[in-house]
């Protein structure tokens, strides 16, 4: 029973309540750094670390944080983890850090992270909070990676810097420029809408058939 509970919290972030595709949160870093798959993954990992770390801390301290100043407390905790992530990336992968630039400190302002602290971590025990954070951050990483991969493949004809199509491919430069981010995410959201409509239609059909059967 208990295991199912944590699994449930984990899986909902990946698919059903995916922070980017379904809740449309955390858009700013999402669009700005996904012009190549490797940047997207670095950003996703940094967000993963920050979200899981701060969820763990917020959930452990939840009975000590006074209600009136909770938002400020959450933000200071998040900002601390972001500073750690910033300096770690600078030390380990200076090249990627330079490309992501100002967007690593901007993880603080990612509304998804604050949203999870407010809606989940400050109310539930540590184990569930961490599972929820892993799920949400995993979903975010997945979304970043798919957007980054699509934009790099179309805009550069390559994935992780490896050439995919050979010489005759004319890269769609627009895809790695800012408009490409908006357009790609728009099309992905369209796909999700279509998927949801199909599912609703299917459920309605099943319900109709069941009524007919009775």
């Amino acid at each position, binding site marked *: 029973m208990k295991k199912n509970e944590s699994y449930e919290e984990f899986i909902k972030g990946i698919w059903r309540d995916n922070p980017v595709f379904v809740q*449309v949160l955390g858009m*700013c870093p999402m669009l700005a750094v996904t012009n190549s798959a490797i940047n997207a993954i670095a950003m996703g990992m940094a967000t993963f670390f920050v979200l899981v770390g701060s969820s763990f801390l917020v959930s452990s301290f939840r009975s000590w944080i006074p209600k009136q100043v909770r938002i*400020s407390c959450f933000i200071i905790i998040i900002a601390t983890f972001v500073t750690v992530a910033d300096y770690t990336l600078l030390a380990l992968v200076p090249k990627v850090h330079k490309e992501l630039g*100002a967007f690593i400190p901007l993880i603080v302002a990612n509304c998804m992270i604050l949203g999870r602290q407010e809606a989940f971590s400050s109310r539930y025990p540590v184990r569930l909070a961490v599972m929820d954070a892993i799920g949400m951050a995993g979903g975010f990483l997945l979304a970043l990676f798919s957007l980054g991969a699509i934009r790099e493949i179309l805009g550069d004809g390559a994935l992780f810097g490896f050439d995919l199509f050979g010489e005759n491919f004319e890269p769609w430069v627009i895809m790695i420029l800012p*408009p490409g981010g908006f357009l790609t995410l*728009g099309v992905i959201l369209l796909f999700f*809408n279509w998927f949801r409509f199909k599912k609703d239609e299917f459920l309605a059909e099943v319900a109709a058939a069941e009524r007919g059967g009775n």
Partner: protein
Amino acid sequence: MDNLAWIFISALLVNNFVLTYFLGLCPFLGVSNSLETSARLGLATTFVMLVTALCAWVLNTYVLIYAPYLRLICFIVVIASTVQFIEMLIKKLSPALFRAMGIFLPLITTNCAILGLAIFATNRGYGFVEGIVYALGAGIGFTLALVLLAGLREESELSNIPRLMKGTAMNLIIAGVLSMAFMGFAGLFSSA
């Protein structure tokens, strides 16, 4: 003087915060459903950006030279509390102004456009006057993008579009087209 004009135009059009840096997308997509609201939100954001530039300059000059690793926490705490303080001040002094933009102030205290402005201004080593001009350009650019999108969205509410397209997906595609249009400004300074 030339330099200041360049900073202003660059923040306003060429490197528009919303359409090329993707900063402040949450209010951009969330609040842009009516022209009036978005104009007011833009005004409030410009105001907070000016306050931010001031705070960032004070912090950079007097505090952060001693402890650079506290940059992020300092920015957030100082900007948020200054804005809160000014909000109380406006509420007391001018109820009309408070009604016009007051409700948006807590909403935008530290969204990514505000924090981004502070960080960009720091990274580029802007001084006091440059910082204020940069904030003004960025704020007006943000308002411009917001008002443009709101106008297009009001039009699209009335037209007959497929059910599938409605909502965020279409707003993003509209924003993409707007962003393409703004890329036209990139050539403005190719010689400079």
